[in-house]
């Protein structure tokens, strides 16, 4: 049943202080993540500005179907994550677990599709280097470096998120969360939504440059 007496960590005076500190801590961490991904967005902006045609040509070889479906998957996973937080605040243990598991499932779908996509990309020789696909301008390789680096880092963050959510689901299963204590769910939700937002920008920048 819902555990309404969670001990406050000894450095804090009371639960509200602990919760506010946790939330502020996660937002601070997300700010660092914005700058972390931001460095690559910076490089993307510069090079797209310098080589618009090469970038357009390169982007044409991304697999639009996979990218679009994955965007839909992640957006939906944000919905299920938000619902998990809501369920926790309603002390609805059963649905906390279900929504978390749903989110994890959707995250896994994302990674599986990404896996197929990477496989197809490699088959097309879209890995920069001496064996890079022929017929594209040389600067297209820069686009593809950014593609691998940005989607790779993003996928890494998705994987970490899945680990985080799995731990949460296990804790939820053991009745840890309720209306009195659900900050870990909320704070993990913030992380997950951030991962979604990164993809919201990756999608148009990588897949939609030149589809006409």
């Amino acid at each position, binding site marked *: 049943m819902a555990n309404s007496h969670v001990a406050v960590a000894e450095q804090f005076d009371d639960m509200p202080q602990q919760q506010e500190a946790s939330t502020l801590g996660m937002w601070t961490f997300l700010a660092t993540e914005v700058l972390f991904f931001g460095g690559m967005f910076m490089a993307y902006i510069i090079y797209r500005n310098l080589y618009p045609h090469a970038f357009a040509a390169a982007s044409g070889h991304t697999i639009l179907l996979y990218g679009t479906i994955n965007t839909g998957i992640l957006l939906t996973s944000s919905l299920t*994550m938000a619902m998990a937080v809501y369920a926790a605040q309603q002390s609805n243990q059963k649905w906390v677990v279900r929504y978390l598991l749903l989110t994890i499932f959707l995250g896994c779908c994302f990674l599986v599709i990404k896996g197929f996509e990477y496989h197809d990309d490699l088959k097309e020789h879209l890995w920069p280097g001496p064996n890079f696909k022929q017929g594209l301008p040389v600067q297209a390789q820069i686009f593809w470096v950014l593609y691998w680096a940005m989607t790779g880092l993003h996928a890494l963050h998705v994987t970490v998120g899945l680990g985080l959510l799995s731990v949460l689901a296990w804790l939820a299963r053991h009745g840890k969360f309720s209306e009195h204590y659900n900050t870990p769910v909320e704070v993990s939700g913030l992380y997950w939504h951030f991962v979604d937002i990164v993809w919201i920008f990756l999608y*148009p920048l990588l897949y*939609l440059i030149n589809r006409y």
Partner: protein
Amino acid sequence: MKSHSLGPKTYVIIWSALMLLLFLTWGIAQINLGPLNVVAALTVAVTKMLLVILYFMHVRSSSRLTWLFVAAGFIWLLIMIDLTLSDYLTRGIVR
């Protein structure tokens, strides 16, 4: 100040808006609007981001301190992008 979760109905509405925007951005990309393609794509992306931040991440009902922290991350990113672009966009300008 604890930010309160919104109800399921709100979340589903936001989700629907997000899916609509996804369809929109995919659709616009099929049409040649020249330089406007980028503008449209980024506008949609920013809108989606704002919906996620304000509603899914509860920032709409969060404290001003949270707003400040959210803003700080983006402002700093903008600083980096703007000043670096100021180099690239002004290279080769000959008076």
